């Protein structure tokens, strides 16, 4: 069995003639945690959708476990069943993902599509709700949840099927620091070396916690690949790809100066 789970070769994609991806080549290994870094509009979300078989490459190919993702392939019931069972996508906007009447129904949706038994579904939902500390929300409708709760439920709705691959689109966006920290703890403990995680983000402060390898996107192309440390230390690359901004700080001495923002807020720096 090849170690490569996703093989992406020369993939291009455009929206109504506007290029979003311009020739991506990338392999994602089994059990690997990959962060897709890039500024807004760099193609990260589109790439995730292609990996999840929701959109399809206009040229080039994406192979999942040796089989090319095409509309025809995803129309095949047995492949679609296997693929949806193994790959889960958490959307950036939880309002898109939470379309059921209650949190419980939301968590039951994926397992029902896969065809699990009622008892199996209930057992699995109970376990996931407990692990994400959302059991108290089971009967609540999604519109009565806070943004942090919605994000947790959105993640739970995918984790409930116990996927082999987790694709996450900006999982910490629009969250308060505490909710961000909870999500990062959840993601950093999720893979355990056996499952694959691909996370699209532009938050440099979380990549070392959630990724073993970073892929930097720039205008729909791969600008760099490296370890989180290599990437966050490459100031020129980060400036060029819009991932770095000058950050004004007032020190205790009263001195105010600007410098690139590479670290987490609260870290000691000079």
């Amino acid at each position: 069995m090849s170690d490569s789970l996703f093989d992406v070769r020369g993939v291009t994609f455009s929206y109504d003639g506007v290029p979003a991806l311009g020739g991506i080549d990338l392999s994602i290994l089994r059990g690997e945690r990959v962060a897709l870094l890039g500024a807004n509009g760099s193609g990260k979300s589109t790439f995730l959708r292609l990996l999840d078989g929701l959109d399809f490459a206009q040229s080039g190919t994406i192979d999942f476990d040796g089989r090319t993702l095409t509309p025809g392939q995803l129309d095949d019931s047995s492949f679609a069943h296997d693929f949806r069972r193994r790959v889960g996508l958490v959307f950036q906007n939880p309002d898109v993902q939470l379309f059921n009447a209650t949190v419980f129904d939301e968590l039951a949706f994926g397992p029902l599509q896969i065809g699990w038994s009622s008892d199996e579904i209930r057992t699995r939902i109970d376990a996931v709700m407990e692990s994400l500390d959302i059991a108290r929300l089971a009967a609540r409708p999604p519109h009565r949840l806070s943004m942090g709760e919605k994000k947790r439920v959105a993640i739970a709705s995918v984790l409930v099927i116990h996927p082999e691959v987790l694709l996450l689109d900006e999982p910490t966006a629009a969250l308060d620091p505490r909710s961000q920290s909870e999500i990062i703890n959840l993601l950093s403990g999720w893979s355990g070396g056996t499952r694959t995680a691909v996370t699209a983000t532009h938050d440099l402060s979380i990549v070392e916690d959630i990724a073993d390898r970073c892929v930097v996107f720039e205008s729909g192309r791969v600008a760099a690949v490296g370890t989180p440390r290599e990437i966050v230390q490459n100031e020129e690359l980060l400036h060029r790809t819009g991932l770095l901004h000058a950050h004004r700080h007032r020190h205790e001495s009263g001195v105010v100066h600007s410098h690139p923002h590479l670290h987490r807020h609260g870290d000691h720096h000079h």
Partner: protein
Amino acid sequence: MTAAVIHRGFVEKTLTSLLHALERASSSERLAEQRGLLQHVDARVKLLGCLALIVAAAVSRHLDTLTLLFAAIAILALVSRVPLHLLTRAWAIIFVFTAAIALPALFTTPGQSIATVAGIPVTLQGLRSAAFLVDRVESATTLGLVLISTTPWPQIIAALRSLRVPAAVVLIIGMTYRYIFVLLRSAEEMFIARRSRSIGRLEGAVRRRMATATAGVLLGKALALSDEVYLAMQARGFRGEVRTLEELRMRGRDWTAGALFTAAAIVAFWQGLR
């Protein structure tokens, strides 16, 4: 210092009112979680019971039966802790609208004249027809209010599923309720954003043009959202077939409530059609 006056157009006011109405629907969800007579009865029993009583009210040929039925429904609402102010407001609004529709019947229905208004005779038969209409609508609406005030929306959805209403229909109803909050909130934010960048009062034509443009943008957002939601469903294995998890179970008190609803409906039918 001059007082700031905020002018809001008709469309904006309507959308804001709708949003507030939906937020009140959220508060009725909280009401449904309280301890009242009907709150702990199975949603299917309430749904079918209310439906049977609505039909009984609709077919009743006797005003006294209808009035007794309305009184019984009002008592049921009160012991189920539906707030009196909510009931009286609903009754008043319904009375105004239904009376407006029933008004011509007072003068146009042939029969025994009992009074004269502006030289036009009001007939006893016309008054009875108007009373029938108002009574039926008040009874039916109160039952609907009792149902939604004592049953969380997800349970109504589950009851519809359980009663074999087509799964696709139930899914559409559930998603409509889910996303109408999102879209109305979005519309309200668009109006607020526009107001924050407007100076002075805009002319009516300009306001109407902007409202039309906003409606167009909102439609575009709704379409984009529907595409996204469909993708999210596909991503979790949805392939066009709606599958659901049966979760409602009838308990002793549900059977008792079902029997009482059935008895009430039989008496209402019997008395109404005698």
